[in-house]
């Protein structure tokens, strides 16, 4: 275990198991107290989803990387405004979403077909078949829907945000968010039922 005093020397400390187990809130508090290097843990934890969201706004990897950097720097600058009651992740995603819309000039619209898909390593299982079916159907739903309904569905299913979090991020009422998501789920349910019927007839 390392003592807190050594935390200013970087690399070693942010990758230690003790540091990696720290909760987001604890990290935020310690960064605000001056342990700037611990911010890296938050970057490592949430870079992926911010990256993925970036591909909704930009095509070029370089643009997305600039975007990711801007989002995290913005989060750092506003860290004292993070209200500890909510998830750090959803607070970050709100910054990311707003920044994406401001930066890309797209008005509440996400380009969902942009990011590339790579085959799931555990292909062939029923689980993965179901999941890729869901992915395909929900992506189609996002693409078909007008904004901000599409963004709601996207953030709920592909970024695991709750109704309330989506409502805060997109800036529309929770009940509206719920009904958009419910509609998408109904669509998915139908699709699943149909494929099951197909599979049944094939047997």
């Amino acid at each position: 275990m390392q003592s807190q005093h050594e935390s200013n020397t970087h690399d070693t400390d942010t990758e230690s198991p003790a540091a990696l187990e720290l909760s987001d809130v604890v990290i935020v508090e310690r960064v605000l107290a001056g342990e700037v290097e611990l911010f890296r843990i938050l970057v490592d934890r949430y870079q992926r989803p911010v990256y993925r969201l970036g591909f909704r706004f930009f095509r070029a990897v370089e643009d997305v990387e600039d975007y990711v950097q801007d989002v995290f720097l913005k989060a750092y600058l506003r860290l004292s405004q993070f209200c500890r009651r909510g998830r750090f992740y959803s607070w970050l995603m709100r910054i990311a979403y707003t920044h994406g819309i401001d930066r890309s000039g797209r008005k509440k619209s996400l380009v969902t077909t942009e990011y590339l898909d790579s085959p799931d390593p555990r292909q062939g299982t029923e689980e993965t078949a179901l999941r890729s079916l869901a992915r395909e159907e929900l992506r189609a739903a996002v693409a078909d829907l007008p904004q901000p309904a599409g963004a709601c569905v996207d953030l709920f299913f592909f970024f695991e945000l709750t109704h309330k979090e989506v409502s805060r991020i997109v800036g529309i009422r929770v009940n509206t968010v719920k009904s958009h998501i419910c509609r998408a789920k109904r669509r998915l349910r139908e699709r699943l039922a149909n494929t099951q019927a197909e599979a049944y007839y094939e047997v």
Partner: protein
Amino acid sequence: MKCEQAMEAILRLDNGAEPDATTQGHLSNCPRCRAEYSQLRRALDGLTKSLENASDVSAPDDLHRRKQVADRIMSAVRAEAERVAARQTDSGSQLRRQTAPASQNLAGGTGWIAYSTWISVGVLLLLGIIVLPYTEGFLFLRGVMERDLDAPLALTLGLVMSGYWALFIGTHIADLRRRLRRLHRAFSRA
């Protein structure tokens, strides 16, 4: 509870939420709904995780690139932290400078003459300029010179006003800049 109601409740479930007791009760009694629920769950659970694990964003050097981005973020963060620290010590020494000679700390504390003083003197000057053409002395002068003095007068007084405000801005530049920055930040936050 009917199947339809149960499915409706399931479709309305939030991320990470479990069905309520009534719906659970229906699920344990109704194999059809139970099968549908489990299928839906299996389709949706780990949807994000499968995206995170698959390199859905880019090339094989994905991991390397992400590390580079993280490095870039951290050096920007460090620079910002240093900037803030520098500004804090800077404003600390400014405070010391201000408190040292008593005369520099008169009123307001932003400069050696308070904003209120600057502004009231400016307003008096402006009033004087407006009133001047109607004063007896000026009318007399005009009578003596037998010429229209309005244009040269406006020019002179305009120069006086400009000089005055330039002096004001020049002596308060640091503080004004700080105030503007704060204003800008407030706007960009909103």
